[in-house]
């Protein structure tokens, strides 16, 4: 959640901008361009697309500021505009892909207990966790997430917004945010686990 000061600052800037003060827009540009670009880039993984989206969002903020009524935080409004512009981009080039997110769960026996070993790679060395190969695996796995899960994961876990804030931006209930987040994490965990297991096998053969 933005702090009270940030909220107060946003409200002041919006008021000044509605009154036609260009400096207020410049300040908003400074405060928000990285947030807009980062979200667009993480959703599209494409510099050109992220640039286009950022430009569109800046233009929309400028043109539509009068329609912003302050029912939600200004930052939520900006995130929503960013996502709408991002969805348009993705829609134009979307290859159809269906991933079943049930894949994220381990095997259970009929009583609901896990019946195989779960490897714990969480304490691997930094040189493995932060290798370029791991980075590539993460980027690919995130790209496979369906849009609904991906956006929640990006806002909550990557950008670090609170669950409540994500609900406000996406107009979702808290349980709905959590269930999408959980599905995304399970799916990504599974992908990472397969990769680290395979890595272990590979390096033990050497």
């Amino acid at each position, binding site marked *: 959640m933005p702090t009270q000061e940030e909220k107060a600052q946003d409200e002041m800037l919006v008021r000044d901008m509605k009154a036609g003060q*260009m400096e207020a*827009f*410049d300040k908003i*540009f400074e405060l928000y*361009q*990285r947030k807009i*670009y*980062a979200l667009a*880039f*993480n959703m599209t993984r494409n*510099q050109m697309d*992220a*640039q286009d989206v*950022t*430009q569109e969002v*800046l*233009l929309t903020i*400028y043109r539509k500021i009068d329609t912003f009524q302050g029912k939600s935080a200004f930052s939520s409004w900006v995130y929503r505009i960013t996502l709408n512009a991002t969805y348009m981009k993705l829609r134009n080039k979307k290859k159809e892909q269906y991933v079943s997110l049930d894949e994220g*769960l*381990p095997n*259970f026996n009929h*009583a*609901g*207990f*896990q019946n*195989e*070993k*779960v*490897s*714990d*790679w*969480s*304490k691997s060395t930094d040189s493995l*966790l*932060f290798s370029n190969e*791991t*980075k590539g695996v*993460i*980027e690919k796995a*995130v790209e496979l997430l369906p849009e609904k899960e991906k956006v929640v*994961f990006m806002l909550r*876990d*990557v*950008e*670090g917004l609170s*669950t409540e804030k994500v609900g406000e931006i996406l107009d979702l209930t808290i349980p709905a945010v*959590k*269930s999408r*987040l*959980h599905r995304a*994490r*399970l799916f*990504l*965990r599974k992908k*990472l*686990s397969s990769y680290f297991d395979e890595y272990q096998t590979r390096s033990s053969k050497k």
Partner: protein
Amino acid sequence: MICCKECIDLLCDYFEGTLDPATAASLEDHFKDCPPCVSFLETYRQTSDLCRKTLTPVEIPEPVQIKLREFVKNHIQSP
């Protein structure tokens, strides 16, 4: 005792700290006796951390920053 499947269903709430104390306690009891769930919990948590650290911070590349400033100048400040 709650089963592994129930444990995993509750992980998100567990980390948000929104479980009622009794449920959280039964989850922790389960973890004491179930190494697979502990591994699952650790890797579940690490998944979020690792993805965040890998995908952030996104900085705007210099050429894009220049383009954005130009765009604002041409389309917004003096349209």
